């Protein structure tokens, strides 16, 4: 078959998916004008939700599509934050610093990738964590950071709280949308197909000429920039940078939970997982440590008994996967 | 004659592929059977299924009348089935003695122990303290068979004992196996047709997961064996289709 013939056989997006997309667009429009009507608390909470969705989407990109289970994504959350702090200190306005800081973290990710991507799964997981710790150590030496005390991005206080909140909300909404759309485009394109091939059988993929390393590196760097941006947006709303918080491993635990419970390796899974996690935090967050212990136990149960998450449950009922990354071919030849 | 091993319509799969397609076979106590066939016929898969390393997707396996289909490999050793696997699979970093001791400690008690296997395979005795990985092919094969024997099995499975060995070494191996005749039920997978026909009282030929031929060497013609080996069916279908399966 010629390429044109094959392409002609690819089915267009199923009706179910088009309906979902339509609903999503409508929802985005509503969210965009929401701040005009909702209270400050709602706006803040929604901002946090958008940030969670970004984290989940990026971790899913890494673990679900590239097979890289990173317990060290907090390295980029922390680095992005640190870069932002330093840039603001150097005189850059805070809002551009949000994105430039993330890019700086991405550069570090690129350097790290040459090293960490050569490891096997288990080693990669812990090594990324150790590296995050090492970076945290180094960052806390910076006199500006004052060890564990941290520092505040006072430049943000120059803006009126209302305007600041609104700006961060809109930036988060836009970034989240772009990130999700970007992930969609990436996965639907060549990288996605290559990642899928690697996921199914790495050796076979290499034998057809796919450079596993290049594909993984691309995904690793992009996911790290994504995590860093989500982290700097979070920092912009939190204002104070503390190494222990920004470099904390709990970020990776949250990401893991959201992706695992939602459905690893699916497109809609992480979004569902983020929504669920957000809801759980709202309802049970006051229980403090017991809540987190419960999160851990739920994670174990899902890992052992429902490894495909909520989307997996849906698929088990025989339904088609919503917004699937797989291209479906028509049956007639 | 007591049936030592009964395979009833067993099916073995590799993913979606059927490696063994509904095979029925009965091996009597004390028989020496050779399984021959081209590469990919399923001989090793069959051995692994009998030994418990490969699951039976369908069908059943009985050892002296008891159903062992669900029994895992370590249990089957204790029930009396021992396999000297393809490639020998010795524990390279452990000494020959340790290799033997593991099977002795986890297998059955009986006439075979460290002293008696060393008697039977005299070339092992000076090697006991050497790491198994440093031995020659012939020596390793002797240790592998000894390791299977030391567990006192009733049924001894030998997968490709001549693989990678010089003709002299193979002679040595078969000489040792000769001493077991009568006392032990043996099933060997053998690529060397001549040897198989000389040593075994029964030759079983497999092709593509199916039994093609089964009989005593003296009853089988060369032509029959060759056809069975390559899975050539002299049936109406083939004549009409015009192609022989090769």
């Amino acid at each position, binding site marked *: 078959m010629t390429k044109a013939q094959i392409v002609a056989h690819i089915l267009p997006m199923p009706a179910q998916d088009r309906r979902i997309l339509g609903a999503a667009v409508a929802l985005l429009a509503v969210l965009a004008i929401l701040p005009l009507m909702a209270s400050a608390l709602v706006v803040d909470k929604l901002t946090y939700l958008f940030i969670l969705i970004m984290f989940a989407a990026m971790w899913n990109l890494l673990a679900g599509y590239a097979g890289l289970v990173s317990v060290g994504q907090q390295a980029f959350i922390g680095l992005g934050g640190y870069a932002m702090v330093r840039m603001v200190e150097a005189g850059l306005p805070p809002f551009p610093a949000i994105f430039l800081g993330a890019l700086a973290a991405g550069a570090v990710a690129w350097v790290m990738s040459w090293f960490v991507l050569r490891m096997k799964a288990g080693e990669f997981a812990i090594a990324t964590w150790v590296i995050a710790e090492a970076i945290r150590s180094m960052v806390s030496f910076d006199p500006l950071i004052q060890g564990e005390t941290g520092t505040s991005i006072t430049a943000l206080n120059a803006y009126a709280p209302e305007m600041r909140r609104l700006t961060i909300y809109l930036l988060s909404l836009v970034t989240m949308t772009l990130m999700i759309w970007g992930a969609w485009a990436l996965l639907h394109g060549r990288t996605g197909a290559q990642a899928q091939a690697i996921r199914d059988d790495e050796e076979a993929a290499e034998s057809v000429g796919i450079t596993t390393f290049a594909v993984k590196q691309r995904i690793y760097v992009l996911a790290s920039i994504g995590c860093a941006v989500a982290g700097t947006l979070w920092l912009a709303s939190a204002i104070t940078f503390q190494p222990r918080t920004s470099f904390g491993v709990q970020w990776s635990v949250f990401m893991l939970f959201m992706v695992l419970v939602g459905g690893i390796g699916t497109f809609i899974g992480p979004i569902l997982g983020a929504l669920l996690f957000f809801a759980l935090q709202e309802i049970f967050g006051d229980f403090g440590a017991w809540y987190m212990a419960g999160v851990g*136990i739920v994670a*174990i149960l899902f890992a052992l008994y429902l490894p495909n998450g909520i989307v997996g449950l849906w698929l088990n009922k025989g339904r088609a996967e919503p917004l699937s990354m797989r291209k479906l071919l028509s049956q007639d030849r | 004659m007591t049936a030592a091993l009964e395979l009833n319509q067993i099916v073995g799969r590799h993913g979606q592929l059927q490696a063994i397609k509904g095979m029925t076979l009965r091996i009597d106590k004390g028989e020496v059977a050779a399984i021959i066939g081209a590469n990919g016929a399923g001989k090793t898969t069959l051995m692994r299924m009998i030994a418990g390393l490969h699951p039976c997707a369908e069908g059943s396996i009985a050892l002296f009348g008891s159903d062992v289909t669900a029994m895992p490999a370590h249990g089957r050793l204790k029930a009396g089935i021992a396999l000297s696997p393809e490639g020998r699979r010795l524990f390279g970093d452990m000494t020959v003695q340790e290799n033997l001791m593991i*099977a002795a400690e986890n297998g059955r008690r009986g006439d075979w122990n460290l002293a008696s296997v060393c008697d039977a395979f005299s070339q092992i005795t000076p090697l006991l303290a050497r790491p198994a990985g440093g031995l020659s092919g012939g020596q390793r094969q002797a240790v592998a068979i000894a390791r299977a024997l030391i567990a006192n099995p009733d049924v001894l499975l030998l997968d490709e004992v001549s693989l990678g060995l010089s003709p002299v070494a193979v002679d040595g191996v078969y000489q040792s196996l000769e001493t077991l005749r009568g006392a032990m039920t043996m099933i060997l997978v053998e690529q060397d047709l001549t040897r198989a026909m000389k040593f075994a009282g029964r030759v079983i030929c497999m092709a593509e997961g199916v039994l093609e031929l089964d009989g005593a060497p003296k009853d089988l013609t060369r032509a029959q064996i060759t056809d069975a080996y390559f899975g050539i069916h002299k049936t109406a279908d083939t004549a009409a289709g015009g192609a022989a399966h090769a």
Partner: protein
Amino acid sequence: MLEAIVQGVLLGGYYAVLAAGLSLMFGVVRFINLAHGDMAVLGAMIALWFVQGAGLHVAIAIALTLPLMGALGWLMQRMIFERALQGGFLIPILTTIGLGAALQNGMFGLFGSDTKSLGAYIGNLSWASWEIPGGIFIGQLPGYMFLTAILVLGAVHVLLTRTAFGRAVRATATDSEAAALCGVDARRVHRGAAAIAVALAGLAGIFLAMRAQVTPFAGPMLLIFAFEAVVIGGIGSLRGTLIGGIALGLAQSLGAMISPQFSLLAGHCVFLAVLAYRLMSGAAAGRGGWRATISALFFHKSMLRGKS
């Protein structure tokens, strides 16, 4: 400087015990237990409860805690890890991270955040020291801990090399199918190995509680130290784990001479340097011995694919 070196070596004994359990799980069960550090903390908490809550003597508390930890390890292997291993490489990692989070926060909920220590219960061992020629002081507690570490690791070594169980463990680690053909039940071996690994973690936790304090959230840091020691010393041999532990202890001890913050960083840097070196030179597949197999597990494309 000399004192720092001595301290570093003694600290290494503690790290070696901490790392030994992790190494055992990696090498034998092929399982990455990211909650290993939390197990150590759990061991400390249980021992502390025996001493503070039940008023028992420290030695009795230890004698009770270690078998309890062993039983816990056996149970976790049976109920959680075995199942997790069937799910592919992601699931064990995800499971143990969840386990770690559950343990940390559960312990925090039960015991609160005040730091706890066994230091008050071991008489003057905490600060007494011996003087050796050269004006060097060796703390008695670190000295005893180091001796205990050597004894314990030696005992595990003897267990692995001279007992039937140890042979079964090494065989399973090398080639679990061939071991099954020799009658070794891999699940029994794995459960035994897990029991030993968790008991060792518990012992390390007790050491920590004696020489410093433990908090419920100390686990992750301990995991990192254990992992660093394992990688520095080379995976798959107890001697290597001891060397790795000592190397880490030395790095931290010498780093502490610059500043307390730097001590941890020094350890991280040594770890990363060794890791980089190993990645560059790769690991020889070798003759398929159990050490080479374990090293290959980490640094080679899965040469073990296809072996169950």
